[in-house]
């Protein structure tokens, strides 16, 4: 165990060192030197992965908060805090990623004063800014609780219903609008991925991935921090994930059916290979897996299914943002190693910050509470989340 820890620490340090070198190249030699982006491919890995996938991977926050506080699904209570933490970190890191990708990041505040309400990008930017603020307040009780500051927690509790509804509203808007960004490129984006339904598909995939990421991070932190795994919660999430995947699959099928593309997508072509990969990872494998009750009830099965789901939808967004443009441009875009290293550094920072937060803040319920919940499932959720448990009441 100790050797393994050191190994991961070394990996982390290597990733950070390479990332810092790339950061230096980015800010002292420019975007051209650090990336393989060019006039034909103005958006590369940083938009495709860091932004499009980053926001999708952070969707667990609004999915779980919505389920627990909006629909009052009490039994998911214990995953609210880790989900909100992941979302908060995810959005902060998204902004970090943006500071790399923007040509003039020091003017990022311009969109607060030179507003263009016709721009989808403007809407996404404002929503992300507002939602990160909402997440900050949803996350803040963890810190306040740590320092036993009860008065400000009471204030936050009082506005909690507003925060929740605002958070879900903003998430609905910008998760779907990330898809709307591509609506203006009908002649450039390949028909497999260009569809007027893009905003719906992006919103749908955000929910599926939000659920999958919650399963993934719960299992992962149970492994990493030696926590007791709350199987009933995961089983519930797995069931919801299966439904979400079916809805997504149906949407995709309907879209291809109505645009008369069903014949084309089964014919082998460069784009079709990537589409098959995406559909297999995102739908075929996890839906098949989760259809077996045995898998739905096993921690490892749920863990694997959630990983496939996440990989599948990451492939989907990379296809929308990168693969889908290659035929139009006429050549391939392969990110430079420095682009990868910045992305890796941001992911590593996410893992590290998550670890630090879990170590110092009351993110996960105390172990004895978890045992208690195991014995008395109804009482557990109230015991485990003393603050947020009543925040919305």
């Amino acid at each position, binding site marked *: 165990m100790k050797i393994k820890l050191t190994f991961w620490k070394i990996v982390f340090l290597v990733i950070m060192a390479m990332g810092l070198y790339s950061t230096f190249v980015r800010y002292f030699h420019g975007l051209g030197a650090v990336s393989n982006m060019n006039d034909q491919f103005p958006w590369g890995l940083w938009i495709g992965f860091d932004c499009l996938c980053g926001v999708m991977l952070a969707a667990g926050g609004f999915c779980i908060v919505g389920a627990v506080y909006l629909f009052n699904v009490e039994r998911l209570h214990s995953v609210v805090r880790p989900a909100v933490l992941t979302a908060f970190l995810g959005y902060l890191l998204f902004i970090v990623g943006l500071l790399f990708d923007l040509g*003039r990041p020091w003017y990022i505040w311009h969109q607060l004063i*030179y507003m263009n309400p016709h721009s989808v990008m403007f809407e996404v930017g404002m929503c992300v800014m507002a939602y990160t603020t909402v997440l900050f307040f949803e996350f803040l009780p963890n810190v306040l609780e740590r320092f036993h500051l009860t008065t400000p927690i009471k204030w936050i509790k009082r506005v909690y219903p507003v925060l929740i509804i605002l958070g879900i509203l903003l998430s*609905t808007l910008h998760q779907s609008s990330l898809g709307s960004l591509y609506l203006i490129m009908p002649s450039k984006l390949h028909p497999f991925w260009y569809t007027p339904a893009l905003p719906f598909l992006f919103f749908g995939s955000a929910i599926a991935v939000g659920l999958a990421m919650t399963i993934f991070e719960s299992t992962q932190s149970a492994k990493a921090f030696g926590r007791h795994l709350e199987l009933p919660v995961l089983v519930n999430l797995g069931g919801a994930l299966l439904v979400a995947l079916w809805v997504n699959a149906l949407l995709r099928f309907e879209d291809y059916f109505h645009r008369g593309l069903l014949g084309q997508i089964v014919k082998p072509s460069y784009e079709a290979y990537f589409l098959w990969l995406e559909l297999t990872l995102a739908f075929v494998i996890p839906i098949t897996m989760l259809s077996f009750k045995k898998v739905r009830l096993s921690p490892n099965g749920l863990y694997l299914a959630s990983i496939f789901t996440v990989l599948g939808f990451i492939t989907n967004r990379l296809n929308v943002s990168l693969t889908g443009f290659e035929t139009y441009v006429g050549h391939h875009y392969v990110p430079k190693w420095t682009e990868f290293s910045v992305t890796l550094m941001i992911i590593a920072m996410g893992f590290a910050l998550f670890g630090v937060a879990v170590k110092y803040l009351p993110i996960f319920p105390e172990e004895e509470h978890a045992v208690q919940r195991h014995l008395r499932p109804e009482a557990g959720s109230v015991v485990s989340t003393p603050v947020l448990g009543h925040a919305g009441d």
Partner: protein
Amino acid sequence: MSKALLYDATMCIGCKQCEGACAQQNKLPYDDKVAAESVQSEHKYTVVMTKDDKFMRRLCMHCEHPACASVCPVGAFHKTKEGPVVYDVWKCIGCRYCMVACAFAQPKYEWGSLNPRVRKCVMCPDRVVAGKQTACAEICPTGATKFGDRDDLIKEAQARIRDNPSNYQPRIYGLHEVGGTCVLILSSMNVEDYGYPASAKIGDTPMPEYTGRVMEKIPDFIPVWSLVLGGIYWISHRREEVAEAEAEEKKNGSAR
């Protein structure tokens, strides 16, 4: 009335003087090496291409409904009433959405710069406002690039096709494409062979409409969705309150 440029490829002799005049006007470097470059870039806003003794010029089309202006989050691009689509560099945050959104792939980027700008032909807005021609039209020795009112140029282009039908493809590229552009092209060849996007592919719909259809719903969506979410919240928590009250009542009742 909006100004425009009519480029008649059949009159072009490939002298590239428009390239040089453009570079001078925009204070860009221009020498034999740049002249030999056959693609547009951050230091070459317009290019004259050669193919089988025929020439074709490329430059920003100055759309009537420009995609770049509609997608820019900070409104760094705007269409002037005189016709040119201009760029306010001090607003730009460098997101490059304009580059991916433009159907003609016109905006180019200063990839090597630490404070990069988007670069494209801006149709000499200072000259146009002052009532002068663009630099490229002024220098053109054959009149292949002609500056004038868009409506007049359309009439003239139609007349040229009518008078010399064997000389031209029977269409004016830019008349209807993406809702009309302020650069109009006449040619004996398919403009598509020179890298212009096919008319059928880009269509006649103004580009901003594709995103506008979604964006225009947002002002209605926000209050409706807030109400729905608030309603769900109220119902699901009301149920809890009622259950609690009932339990309380039951307890009191049994106590009595």
